[in-house]
């Protein structure tokens, strides 16, 4: 952005050409434009139209004054200070929810006043009157709060800009060229807040205990906030210490909620008119009005999530790390974008994983846990072997090449998982293609990180969560999910066998007798690997069985006319298949079946309805058994970082389990209704007319009502279970 022109530079003169200009344009013919040849009309469309009230934030109404009508030095009641601070809290949350500062915090005349040049001189922080009467104390509290808020915004904004997020979709970092105390040390701001707090706590009789407590908790919140977001020190600290400010804020927000009624709103201290002084071509936009209750609800969750996200620092292994990220992000509602950014910061800032580990450590740990326990590949002493023909040198350099190739891909996946749900799905679609290029390269190292298949499953499952598919497509999409999960299970089976062979080899190598156990460290590494493989196997198997069951159920519903395809005058099954499978079509392995193959697999057109439901019942029952086993796994077995992560994991498994139970119920309801219908046909002597494979006309004879839950209404977002009820 160019600096503002110096309008009173002595070397530049402004010459009035109003008359010449007016008569010259008068001579032009209608519709004629005189313009810079490089200037296109297309560009002019993006121009801001002056005096158009919808676009020009600077336009004034008739008789409206240019002056700021609000005097920031006016004296306020303590109740009014509380009112203003609570409104600021609402605006701050609105910003975190994704609205720009221009519509939130920058509508406050106090924030605006503090940002004016000249106000941010260092001595402002120390200029505290020695004799603090109430008249002097209240402005100090307000000013300290605002400075604390502005500095927090600065830190949040900087943190956001360093990580991956989607500008204007998740968050708006635009500061409209305002100075958010970027150069002021946090300590100075905290010092001012601390002074305000000390003064508030000093004995005085000019206002009530309640009011004083309300002001105190608000100032304390600002101090705790600044402590909480000091990530540079937090990421190196695995103790409980970094969690304290988040916990503190969680308590303070409860107090603030209760004290809110003491406040008295000062609506005139907030104005969208301030937008006309912001460096922006944005048309004027209304202030975002978040109710105080909503604001508090969001803050509670925000602080809770902030506390919990720090658990990631208690790294125990790559599998539990992935589980943590997956489960943390699957929360409904999803943690706020700033929390998701904090997670990214903790994970990768400066290529240091969780403040303690190198990229190599994490990658080696992952490969060793998943596929190569006790592999010589991770022996660091091999790095020093320089003889080119030495197998150790070959192994070490091979691993180095491997790490180089997969590192980006590996970390990208974690980063993708930190995004908003729609973006997770979309970016995974791109990510799986890149894995595949790698897969071909690193095939010689027996490890494949198994991510591609699992990622493909996630893409389909997120498609269900985000309601990408229509009910009549469910049968097909669950079937495809089944294919993917089945392939993954087969892959894990191979790895399991390799691991068993390697363990036997290790026994032979170390001369361990049949009934004796391996040395402790080696035994531990093998058992960890086997547990990890067992876990992924259960996961793949449950997905496989459950998706198979649901696919068959939806197929039966489709055949019986209970799920009807909407009219699609221009659509064909083949086109829709191409569209749905586009993300997977470019991945060579596993190859995508042709539409015709796929259709036959899904439709099973010669299998009678009764049999379809019978197979479905078996599959869902198997998934249910698997999930029942999952629910009972303890923290270590389930690869959970800590108790919170474990309970999140268990509750996810329980939701899946409930979904399987509901599916079984739906299947048996449908079976009974179908049997009753057949009986009626028999009673009427029309048994011979029954189409055993079902037809849409039967929908009316089944006497069933079908409901497909909306997003968030079902037991689990990935498993959409239809609800069937018998009509009277």
């Amino acid at each position: 952005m160019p600096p503002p022109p110096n309008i009173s530079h002595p070397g530049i003169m402004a010459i009035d050409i109003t008359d010449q200009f007016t008569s010259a344009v008068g001579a032009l013919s209608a519709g004629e434009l005189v313009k810079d040849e490089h200037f296109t009309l297309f560009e002019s469309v993006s121009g801001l139209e002056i005096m158009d009230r919808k676009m020009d934030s600077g336009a004034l109404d008739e008789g409206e004054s240019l002056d700021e009508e609000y005097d920031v030095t006016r004296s306020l009641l303590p109740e009014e200070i509380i009112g203003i601070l609570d409104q600021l809290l609402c605006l701050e949350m609105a910003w975190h929810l994704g609205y720009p500062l221009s519509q939130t915090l920058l509508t406050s005349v106090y924030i605006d006043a503090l940002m004016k040049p000249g106000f941010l001189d260092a001595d402002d922080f120390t200029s505290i009157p020695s004799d603090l009467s109430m008249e002097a104390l209240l402005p100090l509290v307000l000013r300290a709060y605002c400075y604390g808020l502005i500095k927090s915004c600065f830190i949040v904004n900087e943190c956001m800009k360093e990580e991956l997020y989607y500008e204007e979709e998740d968050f708006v970092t635009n500061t409209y060229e305002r100075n958010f105390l970027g150069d002021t040390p946090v300590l100075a701001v905290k010092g001012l807040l601390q002074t305000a707090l000390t003064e508030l706590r000093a004995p005085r009789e000019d206002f009530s205990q309640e009011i004083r407590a309300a002001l105190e908790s608000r100032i304390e919140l600002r101090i705790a906030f600044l402590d909480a977001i000091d990530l540079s020190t937090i990421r190196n600290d695995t103790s409980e210490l970094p969690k304290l400010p988040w916990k503190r804020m969680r308590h303070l927000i409860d107090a603030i909620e209760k004290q809110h009624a003491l406040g008295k709103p000062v609506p005139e201290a907030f104005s969208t008119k301030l937008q006309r002084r912001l460096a922006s071509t944005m048309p004027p936009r209304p202030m975002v009005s978040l109710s105080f209750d909503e604001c508090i609800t969001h803050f509670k969750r925000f602080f809770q999530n902030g506390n919990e996200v720090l658990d990631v620092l208690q790294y125990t292994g790559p599998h539990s790390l992935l589980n943590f990220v997956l489960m943390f992000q699957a929360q409904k509602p999803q943690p706020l974008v700033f929390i998701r950014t904090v997670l990214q910061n903790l994970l990768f800032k400066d290529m240091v994983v969780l403040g303690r580990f190198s990229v190599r450590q994490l990658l080696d740990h992952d490969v060793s846990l998943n596929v190569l326990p006790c592999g010589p590949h991770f022996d660091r002493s091999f790095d020093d072997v320089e003889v080119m023909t030495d197998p150790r040198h070959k192994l070490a350099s091979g691993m180095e090449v491997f790490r180089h190739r997969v590192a980006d891909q590996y970390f990208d996946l974690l980063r993708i998982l930190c995004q908003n749900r729609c973006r997770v799905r979309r970016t995974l679609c791109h990510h799986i293609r890149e894995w595949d290029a790698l897969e071909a390269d690193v095939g010689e190292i027996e490890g494949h990180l198994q991510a591609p298949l699992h990622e493909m499953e996630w893409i389909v499952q997120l498609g269900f969560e985000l309601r990408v598919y229509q009910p009549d497509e469910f049968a097909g999409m669950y079937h495809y999910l089944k294919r993917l999960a089945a392939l993954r299970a087969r892959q894990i089976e191979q790895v399991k066998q390799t691991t068993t062979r390697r363990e036997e080899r290790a026994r032979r190598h170390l001369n361990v007798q049949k009934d004796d156990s391996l040395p402790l460290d080696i035994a531990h590494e093998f058992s960890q690997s086997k547990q990890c493989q067992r876990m992924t196997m259960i996961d793949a198997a449950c997905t496989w069985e459950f998706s198979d069951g649901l696919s068959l159920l939806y197929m039966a519903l489709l055949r019986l006319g209970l799920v009807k395809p909407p009219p699609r005058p221009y659509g064909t099954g083949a086109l829709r298949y191409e569209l749905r499978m586009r993300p997977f079509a470019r991945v060579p392995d596993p190859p995508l079946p042709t539409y015709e193959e796929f259709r036959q697999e899904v439709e099973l057109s010669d299998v009678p309805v009764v049999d379809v439901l019978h197979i479905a019942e078996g599959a869902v029952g198997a998934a249910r058994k698997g999930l029942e086993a999952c629910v009972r796994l303890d923290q270590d077995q389930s690869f959970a970082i800590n108790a919170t992560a474990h309970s999140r994991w268990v509750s996810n498994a329980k939701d899946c389990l409930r979904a399987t139970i509901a599916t079984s119920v739906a299947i048996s309801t449908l079976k009974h209704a179908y049997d009753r219908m057949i009986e009626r046909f028999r009673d009427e002597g029309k048994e011979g007319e029954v189409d055993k494979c079902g037809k849409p006309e039967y929908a009316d004879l089944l006497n069933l009502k079908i409901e497909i839950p909306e997003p968030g209404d079902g037991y689990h977002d990935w498993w959409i279970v239809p609800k069937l009820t018998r009509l009277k």
Partner: protein
Amino acid sequence: MNEAPTKAEAEAYIKSLINKTLRVHATDGRMFIGTFKCTDTDRNIVLSLTYEYRQPSQQKLAEAAAIAMSENSQTVKADMASRYLGLIVIPGEHIVKIEVEEFASQIKSRSIWERRDIYSSTR
């Protein structure tokens, strides 16, 4: 150009102004300074890289006057409030005055040379 110019003269004159810096004053008292890009017969003006300027508020003027009084100064100095807007279109009906910026060194006329700059500002 006191008499009505011919179409060719008019076009040549406007073309000569293209890409010069114009100061366009609007009916509500604001002034826009930007690079002249385009106009039409309705006197709609497109400026790029535009800054908006506002006259100082009454309150600011009063403060400035007080300072001038205390310093025994003859002139009152107050900053105009400015902000960046970028590309704008000013409809002809809202324009009250148009000025072109020229380098003082390139202007021969003594009368213009002596004209005082009305915007007394340090920024």
